[in-house]
């Protein structure tokens, strides 16, 4: 297409606005990740890093059951918490989108408060609640319901799962709410008119049409949980060894930056692969039809 003066000037303005952001992210995020990638091919020689390219790091990790297990564990946590978040968030998203009028923005703002307050304080609050001498245990003992503290409440996969779910619920809720909110009430009324009962309306109309929101939320939670570092560290106790903590160790005490970099990149690629599969699968599924149409 020929660019006339008008178009060219508009492009120039767009470029002026785009360039700083692109340069910022490229220079301080993409480039560092690239540097990290290059490190994954280096070797360690006692206390210095030998810059001779090798595939050894990747080889070692791929053949190590421990590292494979850690990556798998991270992916399973991601999957599990994402599903959990979906199940927990769905009814609330539906409630806020279709059953609330006046308090809608208040309810949404209430969800933003814990989100913006940061993971550190959220985790701290849960440790207060779940600790062995913490609020929940002491309450149950005080009430005489149990005789000794329930140990698995803190420093356990259970605690990790609870807090991960708590931390990332908003990332499921907001896209879901947006998707359901956008649904025209007339679809539901039409379905009801055609003899569908409440559950029928839900399974035939609301659920399929909110598919894109559900998948977006699912992927966000998945990616964030797989990459979470703090929660298992502070809530998981001895079960808190994760692929991210392993990477951290290699950049700390173990001083093995190359292996750490290789592990980091393997984690990134397995996450990306999983996300790509889900997106592709969704796009090709009947649920993705809505998205495909919008593209045209």
């Amino acid at each position, binding site marked *: 297409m020929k660019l006339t003066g008008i178009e060219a000037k508009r492009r120039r303005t767009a470029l002026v606005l785009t360039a700083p*952001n*692109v340069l910022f*992210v490229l220079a301080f*995020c*993409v480039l560092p990740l690239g540097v990290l990638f290059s490190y994954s091919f280096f070797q360690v020689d006692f206390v210095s890093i030998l810059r001779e390219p090798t595939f050894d790091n990747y080889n070692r990790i791929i053949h190590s059951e421990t590292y494979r297990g850690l990556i798998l564990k991270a992916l399973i946590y991601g999957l599990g918490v994402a599903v959990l978040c979906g199940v927990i968030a769905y009814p609330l998203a539906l409630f*806020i989108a279709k059953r609330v009028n006046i308090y809608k923005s208040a309810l949404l*703002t209430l969800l933003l408060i814990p989100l913006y307050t940061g993971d550190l304080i*959220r985790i701290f609050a849960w440790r207060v609640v779940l*600790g062995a001498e913490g*609020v929940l245990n002491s309450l149950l003992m005080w009430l005489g319901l149990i005789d000794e503290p329930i140990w698995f409440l803190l420093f356990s996969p259970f605690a990790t799962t609870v807090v991960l779910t708590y931390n990332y619920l908003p990332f499921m809720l907001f896209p879901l709410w947006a998707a359901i909110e956008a649904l025209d009430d007339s679809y539901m009324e039409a379905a009801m008119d055609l003899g569908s009962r409440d559950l029928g309306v839900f399974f035939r109309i609301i659920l399929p049409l909110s598919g894109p929101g559900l998948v977006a939320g699912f992927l966000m939670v998945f990616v964030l949980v797989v990459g979470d570092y703090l929660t298992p560290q502070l809530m998981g106790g001895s079960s808190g060894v994760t692929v991210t903590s392993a990477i951290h160790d290699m950049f700390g005490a173990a001083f093995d930056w190359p292996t750490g970099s290789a592990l980091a990149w393997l984690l990134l690629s397995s996450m990306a692969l999983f996300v790509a599969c889900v997106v592709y699968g969704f796009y090709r599924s009947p649920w993705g039809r809505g998205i495909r149409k919008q593209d045209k």
Partner: protein
Amino acid sequence: MKNRGGSILQGYAFAFYGFVYLPILLMGLFSLNSSNLIAFPLTGFTFNWYVQIFNDGRIFKGLLTTMAVAIPVTLITTVLGSMAALVLTRYQFRLKPLFAALLVLPFFVPKLIFAIAQVTFLNDIGMDKGLITVWISQSLIILPFVTIIIASVLYKIDKSLEEAAEDLGARPWQKFRRITLPLMKNGILAAAFISFVLSNAEYTVSFFTSGRVQPLSVLVASDFRFHLSPSLNALAMLIVLFNICIIIASEWLRRRKVHQ
């Protein structure tokens, strides 16, 4: 049928918000409890833990560092975020999805990997960790939030207003200065508040890139890794209350219309 479904949903919503706010409320409750054990039964009311926090010089120093981080981060992210939001809502080009993906990339890269990437990068270019490195790394993570908030406001502004300004002879800068900026002002302010809060709360990346300048979040984290104390409760509660005020103000600004 519909009513029963409705009341079930309503009960669920109550339970949900209970789940979300219970830990925070309990934290608040025990910040006012006189015992230094955080456990039931309650022993009595006290403000001592708060007094202790206000008298802790270390925390005050950390707070100053936090401000030295948060204020520049807020400036960087609102300027860059405004530009990005303008691009996303006002211009059409083929690579726009790629641009959006690039913007959110830093947030979705696992924080630890992002942090060690910063570390190796700084090591390679021979730059010392300090305030500037925290500004940059925090800004990258916070930028997506700021962009979305500003874009949500820009999206609601009728594009023909800007066309009308051009039509009446306003050059791009005048158009921005006299029309777009006044109309998006609330969005920028709302985003700045959130940016400030997010910067205060950020821990993982700050921990790796801050070096010797330790903001409050890094200080407190090392404390509570090893022991919980009611004074930490009090501090956390103060932060939460502060955040609540700022977030409510931000949401109020974001939803407010200009002269309606």
